[in-house]
């Protein structure tokens, strides 16, 4: 079964109606590209030098492309621009803190730990999202439990998910 939905509706479902975290000031799907703006000054848990650096950075513009979906994991390639600087090129320096910040944000929202892994490959910032694990951990109604995400695509400003429902 293919389920197709606009990004905002899918986010509403995924975030259980809580809306985007306050530091994500906008998110939209343009064709097959997810464009988002993150105000890093509002990132939780920033202290000292990190807070000062966040003030200097200000708003980060993100372009997220779905590089592929395999074995329940969505692999995202992320471009980040801050103050005209291609910030993703500095990703190798910051994958640790970024990984921790994303994980903390998700667990604060009641999601299980380890759903995401932030990394770097050939100068590109990558994020692996364990979509199947997220679905397995979601409080689904009984008839949906055990659903398998076979495929995931972004196209025509819509998110399309191929699902196999439990027998």
């Amino acid at each position, binding site marked *: 079964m293919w389920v197709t939905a606009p990004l905002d509706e899918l986010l509403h479902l995924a975030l259980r109606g809580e809306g985007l975290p306050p530091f994500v000031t906008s998110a939209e799907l343009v064709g097959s590209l997810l464009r988002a703006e993150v105000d890093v000054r509002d990132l939780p848990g920033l202290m000292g030098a990190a807070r000062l650096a966040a003030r200097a950075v200000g708003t980060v513009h993100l372009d997220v492309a779905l590089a592929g979906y395999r074995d329940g994991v969505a692999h995202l390639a992320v471009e980040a621009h801050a103050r005209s600087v*291609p910030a993703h090129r500095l990703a190798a320096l910051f994958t640790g803190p970024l990984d921790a910040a994303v994980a903390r944000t998700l667990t604060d929202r009641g999601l299980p730990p380890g759903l995401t892994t932030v990394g770097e490959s050939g100068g590109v910032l990558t994020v692996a999202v364990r979509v199947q694990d997220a679905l397995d951990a979601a409080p689904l109604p009984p008839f949906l439990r055990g659903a398998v995400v076979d495929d995931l695509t972004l196209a025509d400003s819509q998110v399309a998910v191929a699902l196999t429902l439990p027998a």
Partner: protein
Amino acid sequence: MTFSRKATATFTLLALVTAVTVELVRATGPMFDRAFTAGIVVVALTALGTYVAPGLVAVLLVRGRPVTGRTVVQGVALLAVARAAVQVLDGVARYWVTLAAAALAIGVLVVVLVRSVRVLGAATAALAVTTGGALATGVSLVLGTWDAIWRSGASGWVPTALTLVAAMACAWAVRSDDAADTTGARPARVWVLGPYLGVALMVVLNPAYLASQLGLSLTVAASALAAGVVLAAALTLWSLPRQSALLPAVLRAVVLVAAAALVLFPITAEGEDAGTLLAVGLGVVMALLVAVSTTSLATAWDAPAKDRGPRSAGVTLAGTASAVGLGVILPLLVYQVDYDVPLGLPNAFVILTAVVVVALGGLRRSAQPRAADAAAPRAETRAAWLPAVPALAVTAALVLAGAAVNRVQVEETVRVAGGQPDAPLTLLDWNLHYGVTQEPGLDLGRMADVITASGAQVVALQEVSRGWIMGGGADMATYLARTTGMRVVAAPAADRQFVNVLLVSPSVGEPQHVVRTRLPYGDGPQQRSAITATVRNAAGTPFVVTSAHLQHREENTPTRLQQLDVLMSADVASSPAVVIAGDLNSEPGWPEIAYVEAAGYVSGQDSAGDPAQRTFPAHAPEVRIDWVFGRGVTFSDVQVLPDGGSDHRPILATVHPVVD
């Protein structure tokens, strides 16, 4: 000759030789662009060879003897001939002579500088170098940022002749003024001149860079530079009688690096104009950059180098000249290489590193006796500043005149009431290759003439330079807006100095609903973009026009498809009459073209022109990669125009809205 006359000639000579050097280094940008056709390795080797060569120049000029006034006369005479030759020649000869002249200029500059520090003292010599850099900027500004070196008429030869004749006169005036016992004295850390010039060319004394980077008009940026030169002079004046700088060296270094960081990592959003208050603040930052970098030079040179024998000193001078050359080119080269072979970090850090090197070079304050003291005891008095006045006054006047010249004034929108709703729009699409021509050279005048003669009401341009050294440092956006009388809107692409542009004639109103779209980087190697604006015919029928430039490598089809996907999915693409024009780097039959046509767009050239006409390279077109597509419109009379100077040919199209 009295000290004052001798010092005036020395100061003015150093400023003039710096100005000629700055112009020649800028001129190597278009030459390296030609070398790019042979690959990145050839460019890198050519650039490094050119900028190591000043050492050879210094060896040949000095020939193991101390630097004297006669050495200076010989060097300046050679430089004048080489500089004039660059302007006379074209083709392959211009290519090689420009590279040789740039190497000669740096070698001569180092020789002149060594003598000038001895005569004037370090602080005044540093001020002369900054004055010379600003003088080159002022002349360029008065010429609309299209340098004299590329011009053949009076506008090119008058400033060239005045500069070269004045330099020769000053050199002649100092030819026999050196005391024999001091001619071997040499300041330390002359190498700091290299990164200083590199940073000055690219950022500090580059009003087109500053304007595009900070969201200011060229007029505001130029005015701030004039203030910076005055501030640099004031700090020098303050320091001379006290023999100390106004601020501690460490604090000056911090201010310099902080000011550079504010410029390199701007707080204004891309395409956003700085408000009045912010513009004032940024003006202060720019002025501080000019002034504090000058004081760094002064401190760096304010100590004698280790005393060596004449032969050893000659070798050291040659090494210094090569170090200066490499200091000039390495920041520019590495910054630019990033657009072909991406660095592991944002290339703005390359320039910031060069600024840090200048700041560190200015940290030392030697306890040793100053190099200038023995030779010019009166150089450290307030009166020693007076020789700077003529060159400073001319420079400040030129920069301010340049600020006035570059004010863009567009006539009010002219509308004829009662126009037909289906009245067409004339559109020109053209990749300008940052103004660089096949000669090789820079010919903004020819490009402006092509645009004006086309009668286009909207011009979609790609690869427009706003201060790129590869494009000779010109601000093409401002130049073209001013000379065509059109309004300009731009979207940064590779950086804020390499932009896509829409020029809009007052006859189709203000460009409205301007949208700047950053296209996905994909496989790189350059960030690409598009700019969209809405214009209206006389009856008010809207046309949404986009100027786009897609990723260029042949194997980049997936990236181009992703970029087209973003363009086609943008809100503006849902308007009734949409035109997307640009260098799509895609040929007929490629998946990219099929993708656009599948989205309901029609190719203007295929529907109302000659599909067999090719657009690139302009002098002998082999492929067709420039396109005008429309949806909700029809086309008539679509032509590929003849070679207009760029490496692409322009496409002129008449666009008709489909009106129900």
